[in-house]
């Protein structure tokens, strides 16, 4: 029960953070990604705010053998830089720059009934499914 409450709480904080920061609004994200006279540094400031918490927090956790309420820390599936990682990051960057949506903001906006995100999210899930299918 505690684990579940923490999971929901983490989601709540994350979703609220996306709206509070302005990152759930694709226009705001495009304002950062579009390099022109109206350049908006907000997204960099959001990253800085996030990292201001996670960098010291994760550094503290590195000295621990296990999380507070579970047995192991999740390990990334791969440790090497390969073509999958870089091609994936490029394709993601392309879609992100064209629309201003990355997965978190897209899901929140779709969940709140925004029509642009309701169009984008099914395509995103189809893309992920397709990519996973081709890898098998």
């Amino acid at each position: 029960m505690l684990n579940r409450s923490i999971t929901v709480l983490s989601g709540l904080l994350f979703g609220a953070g996306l709206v509070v920061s302005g990152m759930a609004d694709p226009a705001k994200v495009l304002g950062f990604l579009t390099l022109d006279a109206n350049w908006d540094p907000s997204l960099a400031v959001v990253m800085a705010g996030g990292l201001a918490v996670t960098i010291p927090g994760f550094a503290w956790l590195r000295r621990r053998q296990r999380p507070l309420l579970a047995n192991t820390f999740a390990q990334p599936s791969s440790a090497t830089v390969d073509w999958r990682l870089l091609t994936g990051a490029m394709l993601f960057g392309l879609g992100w720059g064209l629309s201003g949506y990355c997965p978190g903001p897209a899901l929140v906006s779709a969940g709140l009934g925004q029509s642009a995100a309701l169009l984008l999210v099914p395509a995103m899930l189809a893309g992920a499914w397709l990519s996973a299918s081709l890898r098998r």
Partner: protein
Amino acid sequence: MVSIQSLQLPFAGGLLIGLAALLLYAALGRIAGISGIAYGALWGERAQRGWRWLFLLGLVAGGWLAVRAGMALPVAEWPASPGSKLLLVCAGLLVGVGTQLGSGCTSGHGICGLARLSRRSLLAVLTFMAVGMLAATWLRPLWS
């Protein structure tokens, strides 16, 4: 013109996102990567689907609560033209394929991966930031 005031909410929102990621990792050892959580909720190992749905439920509810508390979430303005709908669908496909193939997005690589000091995540972030800027600055205007 950018003012310090205009950056207060982005910073505060960033702190909330960081807190969310730290809480999930510190308590349960799980990475708050939204793309991984979303795809895992649908197609991951069955025993690991439940917590992912709970997180996603919280994610949307958290956004809703923030709007209820008076935070702005403007309706994304997209022209109703077939071209702009096609753009959204293509962008969605690219985001889906890219984050699946590249094992993460802005949250997993950006907020968590960088804090884990992962070289993979650093390269992924630099790549999607650079390509995102190229696409938004030069490609997007060509479409409309």
